[in-house]
C-alpha cells in the first residue's frame, strides 16, 4: 500500500533516476557533453598535428590509442570528433523536430484535406530508402558538415509529424481546449499554449532516439567520404582510414567505432528511459 502510494506520487525525474540503464545513458550523454566542451583542454595532442616519424603506431604509453596513417594521435582526434557528432546530432534532430512538429500540428489540428495531403506526403517520403535520398541530395549539393545536418534533418521529420498528429487528435477533443476556445482564444494561441506543450512528451523521446540515429547516419556518410570532410576529425571518417589500413592497423578500425557504439547506446538508453518514466502505465498500475 505504502509502496504503491510512493510510486504513484514519484516525479518524472525520480522515476528516471530509479532506472539503472537510463542513468547509465544519462551519464554517457553528460560525459560526451563535457568532452566536447573541454576538447581543447583534454586532448593530449593537436588533432591535426602530422607526425610522419610516428605513423600507424599501435597503442602505447605516449599515444594511448595509437596513431593514424599521418601520425596523428587517435585519442585526440576522437575527442574532437565528439564535438562533430554532438553538433550533427543536435542540429539535424532540431531541424527534423521543428518540421515534424509544425506539419504534424497543422495536420492534426485542422484535419480534412490539409491533413490528407500532409499525411500522403509523409507516406511518400517514407517510400524512399532514406540513405538513397540523402546521398542524392549530397550529390546535388556539396558534402559539408552543414549540408549533412540539413539533409539528415530534412529526411527524418516524418516520424515526429505522425507522432505529434496522433497526440493532437486526442488532445483536440479534450475539455480544456473547449474551455480555452470558449474564453475566446484563437487557433494560434490554442495550438501554442495548450496543445503543443501537452504533446511534447513523446517528441522528447523521439528526439533523444533521433540524436542517436543522426549520429549513426553521419558516421556512415563520413565513412563513405561524403560526410564530414578530412582533415576535420569525425568518428566516421577516421574509420575510412581504418578500412584503408585493414591489414596493418586494427586500432584505427576499433576505437572510433567503439565511440560511436557507446554514444548511440547512451542516447538510446536515455530515450527508452524517458519513455518508460513518462508512461503512466508503468507507475499507476503496478
Amino acid at each position, binding site marked *: 500500500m505504502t509502496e504503491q502510494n510512493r510510486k504513484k506520487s514519484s516525479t518524472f525525474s525520480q522515476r528516471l533516476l530509479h532506472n539503472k540503464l537510463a542513468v547509465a545513458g544519462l551519464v554517457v550523454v553528460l560525459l560526451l557533453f563535457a568532452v566536447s566542451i573541454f576538447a581543447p583542454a583534454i586532448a593530449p595532442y593537436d588533432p591535426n598535428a602530422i607526425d610522419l616519424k610516428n605513423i600507424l603506431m599501435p597503442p602505447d604509453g605516449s599515444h594511448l590509442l595509437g596513431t593514424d596513417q599521418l601520425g596523428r594521435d587517435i585519442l585526440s582526434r576522437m575527442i574532437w570528433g565528439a564535438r562533430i557528432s554532438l553538433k550533427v546530432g543536435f542540429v539535424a534532430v532540431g531541424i527534423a523536430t521543428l518540421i515534424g512538429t509544425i506539419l504534424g500540428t497543422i495536420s492534426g489540428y485542422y484535419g480534412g484535406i490539409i491533413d490528407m495531403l500532409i499525411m500522403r506526403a509523409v507516406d511518400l517520403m517514407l*517510400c524512399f*530508402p532514406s540513405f538513397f535520398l540523402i546521398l542524392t541530395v549530397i550529390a546535388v*549539393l556539396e558534402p559539408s558538415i552543414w549540408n549533412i545536418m540539413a539533409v539528415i534533418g530534412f529526411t527524418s521529420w516524418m516520424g515526429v509529424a505522425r507522432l505529434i498528429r496522433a497526440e493532437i487528435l486526442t488532445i483536440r477533443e479534450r475539455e480544456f481546449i473547449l474551455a480555452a476556445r470558449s474564453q475566446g482564444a484563437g487557433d494560434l494561441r490554442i495550438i501554442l499554449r495548450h496543445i503543443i506543450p501537452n504533446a511534447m512528451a513523446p517528441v522528447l523521446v523521439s528526439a533523444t532516439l533521433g540524436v542517436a540515429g543522426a549520429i549513426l547516419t553521419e558516421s556512415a556518410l563520413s565513412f563513405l567520404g561524403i560526410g564530414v570532410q578530412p582533415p576535420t576529425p569525425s568518428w566516421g571518417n577516421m*574509420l575510412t582510414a581504418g578500412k584503408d589500413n585493414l*591489414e596493418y592497423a586494427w586500432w584505427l578500425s576499433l576505437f572510433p567505432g567503439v565511440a*560511436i557504439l557507446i554514444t548511440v547506446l547512451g542516447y538510446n538508453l536515455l530515450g527508452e528511459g524517458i519513455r518508460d518514466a513518462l508512461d503512466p502505465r508503468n507507475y499507476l498500475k503496478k
Partner: protein
Amino acid sequence: MMMFIGKRIALMVPMLLGITMISFLVMNLAPGEPIDVLTNLNPKATAEARERLRSHYGLNQPLPVRYVNWLKRVVRLDLGYSFAQDNRPVWDKIRERIPITLTINALSLLLIIIVAIPIGIYSAVHQNSIMDRILTIFVFIGFATPTFWLALLLMILFGVHLGWLPISGLQSIQAAHAGFWFVLGDRARHLLLPVLVSAFGGLAGLSRYMRSNMLEVIRQDYITTARAKGLKEATVIGKHALRNALMPIITILGFSLPGLIGGSVIFETIFAIPGMGQMFYGAVMARDYPLIMGILLIGASLTLVGNLLADISYALVDPRIRVGSHD
C-alpha cells in the same frame, strides 16, 4: 479479396506519381545544367550552340512541361543515358544489378526472420529471466552498432587474421572454370559476411518487436482460457499466441524494406559487391545524374511494391483487414 487488392493497387498510382515528382524536383536542384557536361570542356561552344542544345533537349521549356515529357519516357522505362564512359541506357545498367541486391536483401530478410522471431518469443515467454536480460542487452548493442564498423571488424577477424573468408567481391578467380558445387560454395563464402552484416541491424529491431507483441498477446483473456482448459503450454504459445503475435511482423517487415535497400549502399561498397547500392555510390561520386535519378526512382518503387506485398499478405492472414476496411 480481389476488391481489396484492386483498391490497394489503385492507391499506388498517386504514390508512384509522387515518387517521380520528388525524384524530378531533387534532380532539378542540381546547380548548372545537364548540357554543361557536353559544353564545359569544349571552348568552341558558343552561347548560340548552347541555346541550340537546350532546345534540342527541351530544356528551354517550363518545368511542368519538362516533367510531363520526362514522365512519358519513364513510363516506357526509358530513364535516359548514363554520363559514364560507357554511355549506356540507365535502365540496362540498373537491370543488371538488381538481382544481386535483391538476392542479398532476401537472404538477410530470411536470416532476420529465422533468428529474430524465436529470440523474441523466448524473451517474452521467459520475461525478466537472465537469458531475457542478456538478449535485451544484445538488442540494445545491436541497435547502436554501425553496420559498416561491424563489417570492418568482421573483415579484420575472418578475412585478415583467420583467413577463413574472402572480404571482397562475389567470386574467386578460380570460379570461372570450376564445377557447379565449387561455384556454389564459393558464392556462399563470399555472401556470408555481407548477408550477416546487412541482417544485423534488423535482427535487433525485429526480435524486440516480436517480444513486445508476444507480451501483449499472452496477457489476453483467450490465452488464459486456453490454459484454463488444460492445454499444454507449448500449444498455448505455439498455436494460440504465436499466430496473433506474428501478424504485425508482416507490416514491420514491409516498413524495413527501405532501410535494407538503403543499407545496401554501405555493405556493397565495403565488400565490393557489384549491386545496385555500389553502383549508386559510384554514381553519386561521379555526379552521374541520370543514373542517380534512375536508381532513386527504382529504389522507391521497389519499396512501394514491397509494402503492397506486405499489405496483401496481411490481408490474407487477417480476415479483419479485408472485410472491415473502409478506406
